[in-house]
């Protein structure tokens, strides 16, 4: 057997393997993107039919089963309020949990238990969180259906996503920065607030936005907690509200074409809201990034 040495051309076998893997990667990419694009395309195409000023400014009150017109204003208000409330609950809790896990837990018993339950929570089906709030908040405590009850259910779904993403971002902050801060005589909590969090800020914002996007489209938990209404209810603490996912679900279940069109337009609105929120988050991170401020 001779051992070949020296500089040689790429062997035919490696060329073939390289091609094959390349084709496979592109194919996988296409398979992943095609459904995404087709969903987006369908929603835009069908949604634009009813995506007008009336749709964005009117509710479904006094709109009969066969009537055209009507809108999703009540649902938009509801979704924004519910998601905002859910974020107000889940983001601070999730962030503090992540800070505990990374900065104080040291891989101890408690932090491993928390980690485990966060993982479990990630896997909780959204209906279950809705059922939990229904059973505990509405049935046991006797509270009414409300946007806040929906926000509670959504925050249960949001929290583990926020914890996991914030945890990863905090772990990416190099230890050297913490040590540099300690060596200046800065206490640990100030180091976390002034050095660690700002460094991880962009990533944490992205993680929060992913969590928001995830819960903004949840239907099942809202169905059990927010209920459904055709009227505008801007008070998230009292009485049934609407949400865009509920609106889509409700309208899509009706037998008329006008209702189906409204459902598509509702879906389009939801996608646009999530995209808009993402854009805002990007702007915030860009505005906060040192690269921009430095120039």
């Amino acid at each position, binding site marked *: 057997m001779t051992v070949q040495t020296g500089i040689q051309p790429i062997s035919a076998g490696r060329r073939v393997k390289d091609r094959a893997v390349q084709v496979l990667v592109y194919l996988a990419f296409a398979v992943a993107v095609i459904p995404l694009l087709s969903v987006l395309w369908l929603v835009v195409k069908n949604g634009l039919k009813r995506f007008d000023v009336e749709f964005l400014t009117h509710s479904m009150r006094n709109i009969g089963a066969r009537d055209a017109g009507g809108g999703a204003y009540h649902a938009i208000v509801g979704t924004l309020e519910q998601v905002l409330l859910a974020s107000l609950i889940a983001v601070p809790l999730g962030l503090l949990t992540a800070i505990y896990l990374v900065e104080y837990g040291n891989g101890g018993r408690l932090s491993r238990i928390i980690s485990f339950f966060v993982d479990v929570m990630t896997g909780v089906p959204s209906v279950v969180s809705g059922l939990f709030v229904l059973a505990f908040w509405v049935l046991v405590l006797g509270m009414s259906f409300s946007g806040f009850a929906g926000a509670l259910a959504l925050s249960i779904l949001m929290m583990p996503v926020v914890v996991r993403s914030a945890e990863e971002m905090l772990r990416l902050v190099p230890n050297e920065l913490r040590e540099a801060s300690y060596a200046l005589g*800065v206490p640990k909590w100030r180091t976390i607030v002034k050095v660690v969090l700002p460094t991880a800020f962009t990533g944490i914002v992205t993680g929060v936005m992913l969590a928001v996007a995830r819960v903004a489209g949840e239907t099942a938990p809202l169905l059990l907690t927010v209920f459904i209404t055709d009227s505008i209810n801007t008070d998230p603490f009292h009485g049934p509200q609407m949400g865009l996912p509920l609106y889509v679900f409700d309208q899509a279940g009706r037998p008329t074409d006008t209702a189906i069109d409204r459902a598509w337009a509702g879906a389009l609105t939801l996608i646009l809201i999530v995209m808009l929120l993402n854009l805002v988050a990007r702007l915030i991170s860009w505005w906060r990034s040192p690269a921009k401020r430095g120039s």
Partner: protein
Amino acid sequence: MAKQIEVSDLDAYYGSHKAIAGVTMTIEPRAVTAFIGPSGCGKSTFLRTLNRMHEVIPGARVEGKVRLEDEDLYGPNVDPVSVRRTIGMVFQRPNPFPTMSIFDNVAAGLRLNGRFSRSELNGIVEESLKGANLWNEVKDRLGKPGAGLSGGQQQRLCIARAIAVRPQVLLMDEPCSALDPISTLAIEDLISRLKLDYTIVIVTHNMQQAARVSDKTAFFNLAAQGQPGMLVEMDETSKIFTNPAKKATEDYITGRFG
């Protein structure tokens, strides 16, 4: 400003692993003390015990005494944060805060510790940057990110940041090992100027550097792999490099091992 450090019979552990054993030494004020020795002999660990940075690592602990003049740094009521405010540290790799500008980096130690007026901060930042020999290079771009400087400039920025809080002792853990010869020279010049005001302790792998900048040199070694490191001898730098008392020191300095 500068104070003397006295260490007596100090052991440092990582969990159950004993990293250094029985170190006793006196570090003179207004002088540069260099720690040399092979990798893993515990010289960096020992350095970190001097300002209680060692215990930042989970599971790490220290036994023994470190005294700064009359104060026991490991006394029961001593706040490690105040120890670190008194004994500053510069690390092996330059680590400016990436989210902060050059100005904010230097002001970080002050801002994070208390309230200072803008004009006070301006004065201290300028003075510290001049002290770190960086002022002329950055005075026109104090608002730019500190991470945008070259490696040598970043390290001088870190030194400026460390001296801005007016410590009494400055610990340097291989401050030049990530730098090119010209930046190294700049830092070494800086060290010889800083020793007029501060007690300086420097860990280095570069024996020429130890010979160039230090007044006293301490040689650390470990008996065998896995054994704790210990202080072999400490003396005037000129004596250590020309006529060391111990055979191991001579072997190390002449390059026979390590």
